[in-house]
């Protein structure tokens, strides 16, 4: 199994370390030639969604990646990655890959002083530590998108078919259960 990590900007190396702990092979995606060979899953990391959205387009990665997700490539977006996948963002006109039926809110907890950590339940896993950094949350899910975790009544993790998103950063903690969950999604697709 090979998982590509979008490495245009942000905390991509942390995802690599987490996949290393799970003994999953990964590689960085920085330009179009990096996705010429086949791969089994994609991680879109935290960072600034404006930067990644712009670079996706200018480096000609936008269409091929959108196409791969539409064809069923398992994808996992954290924080900015969630925003890139959302079909609607309440407080931003600029949308990006827009493949997942969720309505997100950017910087939903305000500026850095609003960043926090908490332990909450994640469906099918149990209580896990969640780190929110200038994070978004999900206002609502549509269609067959399902809620996987909430914090204080706000949706912070969701899944729809091959797509998994979290508003928090599992890659910043020692807990590898959400990545394991994603790896399982990839395995199930192949079986």
């Amino acid at each position, binding site marked *: 199994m090979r998982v590509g990590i979008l490495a245009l900007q942000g905390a991509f190396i942390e995802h690599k370390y987490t996949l290393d702990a799970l003994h999953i092979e990964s590689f960085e995606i920085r330009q179009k030639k990096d996705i010429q060979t086949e791969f089994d899953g994609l991680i879109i990391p935290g960072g600034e969604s404006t930067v990644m959205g712009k670079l996706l387009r200018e480096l000609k990665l936008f269409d091929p990646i959108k196409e791969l997700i539409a064809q069923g490539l398992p994808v996992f977006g954290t924080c900015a990655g969630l925003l890139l996948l959302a079909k609607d963002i309440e407080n*931003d006109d600029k949308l990006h890959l827009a493949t997942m039926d969720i309505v997100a809110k950017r910087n939903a907890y305000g500026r850095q002083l609003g960043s926090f950590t908490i332990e909450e339940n994640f469906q099918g896993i149990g209580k896990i530590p969640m780190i929110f*950094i200038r994070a978004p949350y999900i206002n609502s899910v549509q269609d067959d998108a399902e809620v996987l975790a909430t914090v204080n009544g706000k949706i912070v993790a969701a899944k729809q078919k091959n797509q998994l998103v979290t508003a928090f950063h599992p890659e910043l903690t020692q807990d590898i259960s959400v990545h394991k969950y994603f790896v399982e999604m990839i395995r199930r697709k192949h079986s």
Partner: protein
Amino acid sequence: MKNERWELNKNLAQMLKGGVIMDVTTPEQAKIAEAAGACAVMALERIPADIRAAGGVSRMSDPKMIRGIQAAVSIPVMAKCRIGHFTEAQILEAIEIDYIDESEVLSPADNKYHIDKTKFNVPFVCGAKDLGEALRRINEGAAMIRTKGEPGTGDVVQAVRHMRMIQREIRRITSMSEDEIFDVAKELQVPYDLVLYVHENGKLPVVNFAAGGVATPADAALMMQLGAEGVFVGSGIFKSGNPEKRASAIVKAVTNFKDAKVLAELSQDLGEAMVGINEQEIELLMAERGK
């Protein structure tokens, strides 16, 4: 609790990695920077090149001006306070700045003490010329480090020197035997635990950016290849002929910093770079402020 805050603040710097933080003086410039792909902006009244030209005492920017920039963009906004001026820092915290740069670019307010950054909830980034300075700032509570470089010159030589120095010292400590760490802690005037972290991990405990004198996509890529995790660009953008294009090219150079073919494309037709001053021609060495 305090430690958890430091972790969160360190985490924000992790989200900025692989990105470019740009100096801006107006909401319009901030919007240009955001559209060009800046991962954060540094709001200040005058860019370092103009501070250098104007001389005199340079202070924290007008909070109204900073608020204007906060309202203009959705990315993190940073601002500078003077070294040791904890009241300026309190003011910046009160307006909910995302990151405070306790910066040698402004005139120092204290010749001996830096700000006790553990007393704050907002994160701090500080400049460093060598590993000792970097670890001392981290011990005071900095959640991110940048090289000092020589701001406002368009000359990358000092940023290169500082980054090489930090990396060289990290390599030296990594290769030491554990019983030698005690002496290094004495030599660098920092707690043993911090030196031990460097020994075991081969890196700083916080994110390390390059800053000071970066003017071209090639400069930015050079700093990344030397081990920077991202780049601050100050005067280099809005003192150049075509700020929009140059800013956008520097952002892409940081993402594909190892691909010379891409860098060649990006370096084309950027218009005039900032003129710059060589390090021998400057009278004021900002990097010597605050050790």
